Every structure is written in C-alpha cells, then in structure tokens.
C-alpha cells in the first residue's frame, strides 16, 4: 500500500461516515444560495436583507417529485407586450411566485421559466387548486382600516369596503364591514423597510406615505386621537394600535406581538415587491393523484432492491472476491448518491429513479470491464499484483470514453429538459449525471483501494486460493 492508497482509504471512510450521518440523522444545514448583490447605494437594511436571503437553513430530507408524491403543476403565462414581458420582469415574477408557494410545499418549490412568457410551478403534496392559485395571486395588499373604536385582535380576518361598491356594501348582511382609510397604494415604496424602534429595539416595519397619503393620514389621525386604527394585510389584522396624536409627517410603523425581525422583513418585502410586475394567467393546471405515485413508489423501491440484490449475488458468484469488493463499492455508491441528493438537493421523480438505476448499471459495468480485464491479464500469466493494476489501467480508457459520452448526453438532456414542459426529463438527466460521476469514484477508486488493501494484507492467501477466490489460476511467487 502506498501513501496515496492510505489517503484514499481515509477519504472513503470519511465520505462513508459523512453520508451515513446525512442519511440517518437528516440534519438541517445552513446553505448559502446565490442572491443578486444589493445595489451600490444600498442601505444597511437592504444589505442585511440580502444576506438573510442568501443564508438559508434547510432540511436535508429527501424530496419527492410530483409524480411520486402527487400534487399540482400550474403553468402561468404573462399578459402584455414586450415592454412589460421582459426577462427582468419575468425573473422578478419568478422570485415572487417562488416566495409565495414555498411555505405551501415546505421547501423551495420548482418554479421554472419556460420560453419568454411562461412560468412552470410544481407543487408536490398540494392538492387544492384554490389554495395554490390563491397563494400565487396574493398581492400583499395593505389597508389601514377604521374600526369605529373597536380593538381588533391580531390575526382576525375582516371584510373591508375596499374594492366594493356602495350597493355591494349595503347588500352584505350578517358580517361587519370596516371602512378602508388608506391602502398600500398610498405608500411611497422607497420608504418601506424593516427596522427596529430606536428606543425599545422592538422590530418594526417603517412606512412612509406619498403626498396624497400623507394628507389623508394627517386628516384622519387628527379626527381620531385615542381611537384604534387597524393595520390589515390581505384582509388579516396584523396590529391595531391606538392613535396617540395626529401624525402629519406621513410616517407610520407596523409593530405587534407577532412581529419579530424575520416577520418584519417578510412584511416589508411583501409590501415593497408584493405586486407582480406582470399580470399572470393560469394556462394549464394539472392534478396528479397521490395513489398513482405512492403505490408505484413503494412497489418499485422494493423491486429495485430485489434487482440490486440479484446483481450483488451475480457479481459475487461470477467474479468471486473482486465481486464482493464490487458489491461493497456498490453499497457505498448508494450511500453517497443519496447523501448527494439530500445535499444538492435533487428532487426524485420516477424517471429520476430510472436514471439512478441506469447509473447503478453503469457502475457495475465499470467493475465488469475492470474484472474481465484483470482475468485476462492473470490468464496471460501476469502476477496477481500486476494483473490487478493492469486490469484498472487497461479498462480506464473505455470507462472514461463511454462515461464521458453519457455525461455529454446528460448535459444535452438537461438543456432541453428545461424547455420540455416538465422537470421530468431534467430530473432524469440530473440523477444520471451525478450517478455517472459517483459511479466512477466507487467503481474505480473505491474498488481499487480495497483490492490493493486486500492484496497487501491477504495477498498470499489470495494467490494460493486464486481458483476459488478469483476464478483464475494465478502463478504464485
């Protein structure tokens, strides 16, 4: 064993340990995701916001795609001409939609841009089209509401006069209707930010009105000193402060028990970017039943395991000791690949699983190429040591060239998969791609390191029992 082999051995053990931990403990890990840099003249708050966006704590649970878990796929199309529907607006819209649907899915949902004016939204585990569409069409609508002296509890849903005509208001009976004094449209969006109270350090959302808003706000607060004013977001009360004195400078803030730093940030973002830059229309809306997926998943997983065990048995019977080593390498491969899926993360779909199975097949193929070569060299009278090494060296070019062509195909599939209308083809390409790379590590590095280790420790025993252990008679030294 050379120094390099020991390094590899420790590296393999380290990776196996790490992936065991990832697979068994499924720890939540802090990730940094790429976020566009804040503009040069950004305020400290904006910089902090960008940093908070970049650092995300994420679970490493395995993600199952639409077809496995069931759920919905919605395709949105932007209305308007090229002046509105441009790549920049579509990207902003994509980010906003993604922010809106993520809480429903529990992690970052797949929101892809397709072509010039389409967004594809995949929502595994979501089955209520109303819920999904409502979440996507939410605008972050802020209202300042006159409560007629009533103090409304936080979180209460209310009906307001905004958007209703006088007749409609008159027609509604049984529900109280509150009068909207001002809306988010009266705010100056540059003046909206998450902040903290200078004296109490309490997190707040600082607001500033435009000229018209300032005038209305001053008039209303002058007339309603010592009365409550409800601040309502999407028809839900977020706070209900008492007006202490007339506010004439057009500044206000939102604070409340339920508002911590994160929530203040969320509200500020919602108010600032709430409105989508383009109007989006639902053009396609699919629901995939969960039964379709679940039954298939469970049975296919079991079937896959049966198939895999058959492969292990075959390899062991056909290639003997190297076959056992290959089987161990294959188990390590499976551990590594699932750890990788959790880390990246890769969303597993049915074609994804198929891509995984194919890559397992290719991992085995690499070992077969090596072992066949090894047998050939040993039959030709090479010593055990040179036979093992020659097997790896000679098989390398064919493994490399064939795997490289598969990687190229994956890249093409990935590129076209983005526009194929579903993440299905893309998922297949991703799993195959990582599968091929990990398979080269497991089938070559892991197998070689273990075989060298075996040769080093029980080499003479291998030579003496070569007919049984290798399937070939080896000349003893």
């Amino acid at each position, binding site marked *: 064993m050379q120094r390099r082999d020991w390094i590899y051995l420790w590296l393999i053990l380290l990776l196996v340990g790490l992936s065991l931990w990832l697979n068994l403990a499924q720890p939540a890990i802090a990730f940094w995701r790429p976020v566009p840099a804040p503009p040069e003249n950004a305020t400290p708050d904006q910089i902090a916001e960008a940093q908070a966006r970049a650092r995300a704590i994420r679970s490493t649970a395995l993600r199952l795609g639409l077809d496995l878990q069931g759920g919905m796929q919605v395709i949105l199309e932007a209305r308007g001409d090229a002046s509105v529907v441009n790549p920049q607006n579509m990207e902003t819209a994509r980010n906003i939609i993604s922010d809106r649907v993520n809480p429903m899915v529990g992690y970052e949902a797949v929101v892809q841009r397709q072509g010039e004016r389409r967004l594809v939204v995949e929502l595994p585990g979501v089955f209520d089209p109303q819920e999904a569409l409502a979440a996507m069409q939410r605008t972050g609508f802020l209202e300042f509401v006159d409560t007629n002296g009533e103090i409304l509890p936080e979180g209460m849903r209310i009906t307001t006069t905004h958007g209703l005509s006088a007749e409609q208001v008159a027609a509604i009976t049984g529900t109280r209707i509150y009068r909207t004094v001002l809306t988010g449209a009266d705010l100056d969006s540059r003046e909206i930010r998450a902040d903290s109270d200078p004296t109490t350090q309490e997190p707040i959302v600082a607001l500033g009105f435009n000229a018209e808003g300032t005038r209305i706000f001053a008039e209303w607060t002058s007339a309603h000193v010592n009365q409550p004013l409800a601040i309502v977001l999407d028809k839900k009360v977020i706070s209900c402060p008492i007006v202490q004195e007339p506010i004439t400078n057009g500044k206000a803030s939102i604070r409340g028990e339920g508002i911590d730093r994160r929530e203040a940030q969320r509200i500020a973002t919602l108010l600032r970017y709430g409105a989508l830059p383009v109007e989006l229309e639902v053009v396609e809306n699919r629901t995939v039943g969960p039964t379709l997926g679940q039954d298939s998943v469970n049975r296919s997983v079991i079937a896959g395991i049966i198939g895999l065990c058959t492969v292990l048995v*075959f390899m062991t019977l056909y290639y003997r000791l190297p076959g056992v080593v290959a089987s161990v390498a294959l188990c390590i491969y499976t551990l590594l690949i699932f750890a990788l899926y959790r880390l990246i993360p890769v969303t597993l779909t049915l074609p994804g699983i198929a891509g995984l199975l194919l890559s397992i097949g290719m991992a085995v193929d690499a070992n077969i190429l090596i072992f*066949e070569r090894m047998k050939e060299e040993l039959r030709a009278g090479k010593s055990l040591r040179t036979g093992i090494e020659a097997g790896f060296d000679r098989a390398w070019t064919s493994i490399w060239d064939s795997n490289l062509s598969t990687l190229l195909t994956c890249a093409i599939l990935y590129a076209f998969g983005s526009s194929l209308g579903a993440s299905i083809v893309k998922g297949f390409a991703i799993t195959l791609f990582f599968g091929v790379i990990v398979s080269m590590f497991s089938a070559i590095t892991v197998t070689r390191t273990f075989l060298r280790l075996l040769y080093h420790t029980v080499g003479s025993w291998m030579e003496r029992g070569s007919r049984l252990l290798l399937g070939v008679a080896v000349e003893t030294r």
Partner: protein
Amino acid sequence: MLRLIRRRYLYFALSALIIVPGLVAMGISTARYGTPVRLSIDFTSGSYVEVEFERPVQAGEVRRVFLEQGLEVASVQLSAGDRIAIVRSQVMDAARKDRVIAALGKELGPVRERRFDSVGPSISRVVTRNALYAVLAAAVVILGFITFAFRKVPHPFRYGLCAIIAMVHDILVTVGLFSLAGLLLGWEADTLFLSALLTVIGFSVQDTIVVYDRIRENTPRMRGLPFEQVVDHSLTQTLHRSLATQLNAMFIMVAILLFGGATIKQFILVMFVGLASGTYSSLFNAVPLLVVWENRDIPRFFARLRGRA
C-alpha cells in the same frame, strides 16, 4: 477467437426483421392517428379526467354527460370493475372540469376526481419540437465526440457514423415496437417514453464505445492482421463484458417488471427492449458496419453485379 463478423449480413437481416414490422406499424399509425406513435396529451393537446364512481358505469353514459356539457370526447376508458373512468376530452379549465364532475355526480351517483390534466396546444408543439431537437443535438455531439476520441485510429469519422447508425437502429426498434403496442394495446407516448428513449440512446452509444475501445487498442498491436480479424478478436474479448453488463441491467429491469408499480412498467419495458437492442446493435451492427466499410463490401457487390450482367 470467434469468427462473428463473417455472418454480418445475417445480423443485418435479423435487425431488419425487427425494424420492418415496426416501420409498417409506424406507417399505419401515421395514417390512423397522424403520428408514428400514439401520443399522450403531454404531446398533443387535450384534457385527461380520471374519476371514480361508487357503482359501475357505462362508457356511453359518461360520454353523454360530457357532451351535454358541450365537451367533445375523444375516448372513455373504464377500469376497476367499470368504476373508474378515464376520459380524454378537449382542453378545459378547472372551473369547467368542476362543472362536468358535478354533472357526473348528479346523473351517475357519487363520484370522486382522481386526476385531472389539461394541456394547451401551444405547449405540446413546443415539447414535440424540443424532443426532436434534443435527439438531433445528441446525435451531432456524440458523432463529434467519437470522431475526436478515436482520432488516433484510421478513419475516426467512420466510427462516429457507425455508432450513430447503431443508435438510429435502437431508436427505430424501440419506437417501432412502441408504435405496434400503440396499435394493439393503445399505448401512448408521454414524457416517460421520451426519457426511456433517451436512456436507450445513451446506453447504445456507451456500449458501442466499449467495443470500439478494444478495436482502438488492438489496431496497433495486430498490425499485420486484416481488419476483419482485428475486429473479431476485439468482439470476442469484450463479449463476456457485454453479456455480463446486459445481464445485470436485465436483473434490475425484470425485477421492476415483475414486482414494480404499474405506472413505471411501460417505461421499464421500453428500456428493456431498447437496452437489449443497444447491446445487439453495438456488437452486430456498429462493429460489422466498420468492416463493411473497410472491406468496401458495397462497391464490390455492385461490381460483381455488373460483372455478371
């Protein structure tokens, strides 16, 4: 050494035996449905409504309810003791689907929606076009890659082109049999079929490259031997590997076909056929074709014809 190459025209004939019925099926399918394979709504446009009733229903009843709602119906399929109906219909939005399901509930008793898909015509056009581009792009890139990887042997372009011919062979076998299944069993190509087909393409090339690699290695070593024998040696040496690899792939696929979930079976079956074809075409098409080209079989054949005439 096995003298495999000698019977090369037998192998080509065997390929033709599989491909020709497939081509015929594709022709019939094109005449009947407008496309070589029947397409699911992933590729065409329309809607797919799957509903479950509490009691058995008749296809005609279901169709009538859809028609009453002003929806054209392409097909109604019943399963699970006639309690589950799969209706293929024109494109509709969720509101319209809700109305038709409500109508079904009123006329035919309690009903539960299992699945709903609706795909507009513009999407399907994009998907179909991109699928074709993907295959073409893959072929071009692979041709370039092989020509580059085999630049040290004489005529590297031949290797690339023969690998692409073998790939087309596998596509024809897979699509042809799928087309036949479409005619006989009503199979429809969806995005899963597409990914299976792309897998087959990847595997086909991978397999071909392994055999080529052996020829590349043997060419300088067996300088004195005729090309045909070099190829025979190479085939013999890689035969074990080809069979072992194919066998392993079969283990996994057969396990899934026997015990796996229903939704993935069609997908695996397509891969099964495609991978078998991939191994066959590598050994018995891509490699013998190199010999056909090297020996100038075709010009000689015509020369002989002319000589006889």
